[in-house]
């Protein structure tokens, strides 16, 4: 049995009058990939943004319930949001390299944290992160070129590497391959499978096949509610709920 990393109990989330998550209960274990699938507006992205408190940035939200990370409540008002976000990294749907060099994209946040002061230490961190994201071989000779010159797939792997450079415990991926070609997608998926032994990964995707390929557990959200949760092959072979069956066989979505 893998250790429990995140425990979500009765999580309810409102944007003004609109309910985005309705009474969610979910256990997420360390060392595996949880795939989150569901049609648009089902609350997937909102859920990710609760886990690193990025939801705080939107005015007029209401949160109820509890989310524990290693047994510690992260929705508590006194939770240190900045350090939480360093533990729970996020990769966005659109690759957003900052307008700096490849090296700086990875190094600037760890440097601000003051944990890595020395140049050699930083350089080592950058190299390990780029290797883990399978980008090192392609960029090792031009680390000081602008990150904006990379291709879309490379940019997304750069963003993944940037998140890894923060040495997080949990990685949230919000449709990380939605804008990428099949080859880049395959490389990202490969990377994720590589990474899961060291991290807890939550992967949101509109591509059910991707979820089936990559994830160990899968949760299906529909209309702000958790409809089904289970081990991936089981959910895809013998879904317990009719909605899940309809969704993965493409009868709606």
């Amino acid at each position: 049995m893998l250790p429990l990393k995140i425990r979500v109990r009765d999580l309810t989330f409102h944007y003004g009058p609109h309910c985005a998550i309705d009474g969610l209960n979910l256990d997420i274990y360390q060392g595996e990939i949880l795939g989150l699938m569901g049609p648009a507006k089902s609350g997937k992205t909102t859920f990710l943004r609760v886990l690193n408190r990025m939801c705080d940035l939107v005015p007029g939200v209401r949160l109820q319930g509890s989310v524990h990370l290693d047994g510690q409540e992260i929705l508590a008002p006194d939770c240190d949001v900045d350090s939480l976000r360093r533990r729970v990294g996020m990769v966005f749907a659109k690759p957003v390299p900052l307008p700096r060099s490849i090296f700086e994209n990875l190094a600037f946040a760890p440097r601000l944290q003051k944990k890595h002061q020395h140049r050699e230490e930083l350089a080592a961190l950058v190299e390990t992160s780029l290797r883990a994201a399978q980008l090192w071989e392609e960029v090792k000779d031009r680390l000081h070129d602008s990150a904006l010159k990379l291709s879309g797939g490379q940019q997304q792997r750069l963003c993944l590497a940037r998140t890894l450079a923060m040495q997080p415990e949990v990685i949230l991926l919000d449709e990380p391959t939605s804008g990428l070609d099949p080859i880049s997608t395959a490389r990202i998926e490969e990377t994720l499978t590589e990474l899961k032994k060291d991290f807890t990964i939550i992967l949101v995707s509109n591509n059910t096949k991707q979820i089936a390929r990559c994830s160990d557990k899968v949760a299906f959200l529909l209309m702000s509610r958790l409809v089904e949760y289970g081990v991936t092959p089981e959910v895809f072979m013998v879904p317990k709920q009719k909605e899940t069956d309809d969704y993965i066989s493409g009868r709606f979505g």
Partner: protein
Amino acid sequence: MRLDPYLTERLMKSLLWCLTGLTIFALIFIITFISIKGLPQLSLGFFFHDIEDMGRAGGIFPTIISTIYLTLIALVVASPLGVGSAIYLTEYTTEGWITRLIRFGAECLAGVPSIILGLFGFVLFVIKLNFGWSMLSGGLSLAIMVLPTIIRTSEEALKAVPKEYQDVCFSLGLSKWQTITRVVLPCALPGIMTGIVLSIGRSIGETAVVLFTAGASLRTPTSLFDSGRSMAVHFYILAREGLSMPNAYGTAAILIISILLINISAYTLMQSFLKRYQ
């Protein structure tokens, strides 16, 4: 009868070309006119000598110093105020009636005629605060004059920075202030600098505000509380009193050339900054 679209296209294209040409022509005309009249007056002495005989003879050294003084004070005061307000308005508040009121206020300030700003500066700084006709009074009044420009351009520049950059920074555990100083401001800097360079140009060329607040002393100012005349004021007095048209044109030529040089160097600096950052 309908016009042939092809004909309209050609007609409009030439019309727009003429309008653009006219604008450029006005600029070229002014610069050539001032250069032809003013450049022959220039000599090393003109730059480095004191004003003699009310400006009929001698150089314009004191007015150059006054202008630099005034512009520097205006910049040092207005830039932090303006950029700070812009950061507050774009990053630290949500859009509401307060921000709209502040923005409306800044716009009204931009619409105040400079002569009235001069009068205001006179009443507040020269009389009430007892700074007298001085570099300080003039610089502060100029600061009020350029503040709306700096706020407005900085705000636009900050708003143009993609929101995603901030999301990324927050997701990497950066605080708001770190995000602003490390990522948002460097991205917005070219836009902010444009506003500041524009303000330098306006401060150097401003006459009415300075005439009322810095006075028109012929001596070289040595402290914040000295009076002195800027190049623009000197030009105004020379031309208006009919003291010496050649010297007036000489001053005007220096005025225009210095503004041109500042614009060019600011632009070059910006380009090298952009290269380094991207």
